[in-house]
């Protein structure tokens, strides 16, 4: 009953006209930065952080939160239409989403990703309302040993991400791990692979790598192809997915939502890892895995639901423990702190209006996104319909601005350009960037948590199997690896193999 009263109170706060306005501004900016490649939620939020100072804490935080989940919506549009992820969590959406667009099914792809996002966002918020305080304790049960096992599971997922040659994918993963090692060793603070360069001490940034490999490389490769204008020039129809599409997508959406929500709670990859994991899960469960990579709607619905659910789940550790599970949440924590508020176990009771107001506004924001974005997709497409000789330089310009804004560091711009060139050659030679990015994110966390758990267990390796959560993750990883070898599943393995050989 208390919860209901609180929710009602929260809607009272969120429906105040000024808060509605901020919520709208937030989701609008969010969608915009999501659509524009290069500028992600992180740069937009850090640029707008000072703006929140002028209003009340509710308004400021409602706007910041809106930018975050709005960008999750917007990111899928560019992924589907031009094969450039608007932000990192949309990398997977490119795989099947763009394939669908090439087949003239851009409408259903955009539609299903919007509905999937809405569905997942709604679920995540209801869960946030009901179980937030209880779930917070799950997050702190994860120590270094648990994270290590989770990362192992994450890297196993990588084997399902590949469309082409497995050997090439593993090579990319190895390069990703090595690139992740650059910087100060997180345990002993010794610089590794920095070649005496000060800029490399903090390691290579994820943003320039992703923007280079996906954004710049895509533009470079497109300049030499006879460009297919038909995808975004064609009128986008059938935004409302057909009955068949719904039937195919319902399961992936549901699973993606739950998977994304729980991965979102855990510190680390959040939305990015959730979208990868959901894609892998759907491919594994599918009766026709060979369709993945060739425009399977499941490959859009699942990951899009997962990254939005993760965006919602990520609020739980922040709001209940003051522990931001990712960079975006850390920025939001900054926004709270600017207003003299410390998110933590006491916030829900001491600042009930604020907490429930933010949660309620997120629900309203999700609704706004759905109502606004389906009709407005046309407008976003207009943005992308500019002639390529204008659009491409603009994309490059935005990626450069975006990368520079996220760190105020020219070096990162060079890194992005370098990875753009590398990404161009990778594509020419059939190497996929996705495994590299995943390994780049997970590798350092894997190493760091392995070493931390061994420090804590005083060198005893059994710590990974005696701790229940860790053991469960490892068992699941092993099952995923040897599953295809079991006779009962042999048929499926052959299909997967066929796919990998393709």
């Amino acid at each position, binding site marked *: 009953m208390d919860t209901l009263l609180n929710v009602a109170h929260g809607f009272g706060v969120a429906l105040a006209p000024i808060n509605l306005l901020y919520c709208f501004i937030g989701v609008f900016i969010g969608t915009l930065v999501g659509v524009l490649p290069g500028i992600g939620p992180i740069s937009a939020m*850090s640029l707008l*952080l*000072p703006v929140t100072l002028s209003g009340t804490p509710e308004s400021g935080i409602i706007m910041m939160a809106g930018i975050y989940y709005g960008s999750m919506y917007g990111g899928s549009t560019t992924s589907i239409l031009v094969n450039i992820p608007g932000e990192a969590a949309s990398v997977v959406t490119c795989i099947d989403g763009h394939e669908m667009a090439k087949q003239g099914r851009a409408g259903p792809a955009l539609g299903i990703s919007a509905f999937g996002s809405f569905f997942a966002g709604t679920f995540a918020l209801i869960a946030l309302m009901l179980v937030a305080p209880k779930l917070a304790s799950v*997050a*702190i*049960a*994860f*120590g*270094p040993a648990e994270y290590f096992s989770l990362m192992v599971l994450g890297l196993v997922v990588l084997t399902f991400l590949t469309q082409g040659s497995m050997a090439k994918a593993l090579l990319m993963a190895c390069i990703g791990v090595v690139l992740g090692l650059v910087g*100060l*060793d*997180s*345990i*002993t*603070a*010794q*610089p590794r692979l920095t070649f*005496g360069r*000060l*800029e490399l*001490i*903090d390691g290579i940034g994820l943003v320039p790598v992703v923007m280079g490999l996906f954004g710049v490389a895509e533009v470079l490769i497109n300049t030499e192809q006879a460009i297919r204008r038909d995808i975004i020039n064609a009128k986008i129809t059938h935004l409302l997915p057909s009955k068949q599409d719904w039937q195919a997508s319902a399961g992936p959406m549901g699973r993606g939502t739950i998977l994304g929500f729980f991965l979102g709670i855990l*510190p680390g990859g959040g939305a990015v890892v959730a979208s990868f994991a959901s894609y892998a899960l759907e491919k594994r469960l599918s009766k026709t895995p060979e369709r993945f990579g060739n425009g399977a709607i499941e490959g859009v619905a699942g990951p899009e639901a997962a990254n939005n659910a993760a965006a919602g789940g990520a609020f739980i*550790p922040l709001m209940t*423990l*003051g*522990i*931001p*599970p990712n960079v975006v949440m*850390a*920025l939001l*924590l*900054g*926004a709270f*702190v*600017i207003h*003299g508020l*410390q*998110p*933590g*176990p*006491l*916030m829900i009771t001491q600042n009930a209006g604020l907490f429930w107001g933010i949660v309620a506004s997120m629900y309203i924001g999700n609704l706004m996104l759905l109502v606004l974005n389906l009709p407005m997709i046309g407008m976003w497409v207009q943005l992308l319909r500019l002639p390529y000789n204008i659009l491409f330089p603009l994309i490059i310009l935005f990626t450069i601005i975006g990368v520079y804004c996220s*760190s*105020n*560091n020219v070096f990162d711009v060079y890194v992005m350009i370098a990875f753009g060139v590398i990404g161009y050659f990778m594509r020419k030679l059939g190497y996929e960037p996705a495994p590299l990015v995943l390994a780049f994110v997970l590798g350092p966390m894997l190493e*760091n948590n392995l070493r*931390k758990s061994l*420090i*804590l267990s*005083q060198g005893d390796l059994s710590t990974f199997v005696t701790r229940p959560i860790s053991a469960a993750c490892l068992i699941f990883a092993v099952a995923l690896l040897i599953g295809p070898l079991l006779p009962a599943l042999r048929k499926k393995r052959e299909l997967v193999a066929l796919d990998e050989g393709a």
Partner: protein
Amino acid sequence: MFQRSRLKIALAAIGMLASAAAGAQEYPTKPITLIVPWPAGGSTDLTMRAMAESASKVLGQPITIDNKAGGGGTVGPATMAAAAKPDGYTIAQIPITVFRLPLMQDVSWDAAKDFTYIVHLTGYTFGVTTSAEGPFKTWQDVVDFAKANPGKVTYATPGAGTSLHIGMEQIAGMAGIKLTQVPFKGGAETNAAVLGQHTMLQADSTGWKPLVDAGKLRLLMVWTGSRSPNYPNAPTLKELGYPMVYDSPFGIAGPKGMDPKIVAKLHDAFKKALEDPAVIATLAKYDMVPNYKNTEDYKKFVGEVTESERKVVEKLGLTKKSN
């Protein structure tokens, strides 16, 4: 030929002196850039913004903040030392890593020569916490347990080579105990580590505040000179018998070779800012204590701090390899 060129040089020198003097008289005539080597929105950034806001009123010119994060807070000052003119229009916050990192690896700057130190401002509040459900009630409990079980006491820090790591090792050295550091990334992770009892202790700046207030964590000690008004029950290092204050102090500096008159103007402006009630309130929010040192004392302090850092870094085996 020789004569003429000498004359030219002399004239040029006079010209430069004159323009420099005029520059110092009128300074500042345009906005000043203050490099904050941390991301926007963090506690250092927000307190520096408050101080810049207040100092700009005194100077009559706006101070714009340029967040240049990286290298543990050294990229910003290093960039300034390498590229900025010593005209007083580019200054930077100088965190303690500027003195520490050169001891650990080859860097592009010399902390003793490449900066004009202006004024010392403040430092952080560090503290050691443990889970409220854990066995330790006081720091003495920790020392007793560690003596019986050498190396078994684990503590989470926001990173290896940070002030927290180095401070804890100094304390352990004085107490004659052996502690095991587990380096995490930043305050959010150390909070989770000690809350989930993955590590026994947490050494961090005041990120633990809401959890201590909520009674989930127990504050065992603070590293400031006197007790924190917010936590009057937590003893200081000195009270526990460790004669030191560890607060990772910081001030501001410009590139080398700044005009003393400009330095004095900046010094006065920031000194005033430190007395501004709005600045004091912002500092208090983050449990930072004003720690004013004038230009001369700051310069001396840099030498002292570099020496004491050298000793600890050597003891921890983090010294750069001479090759």
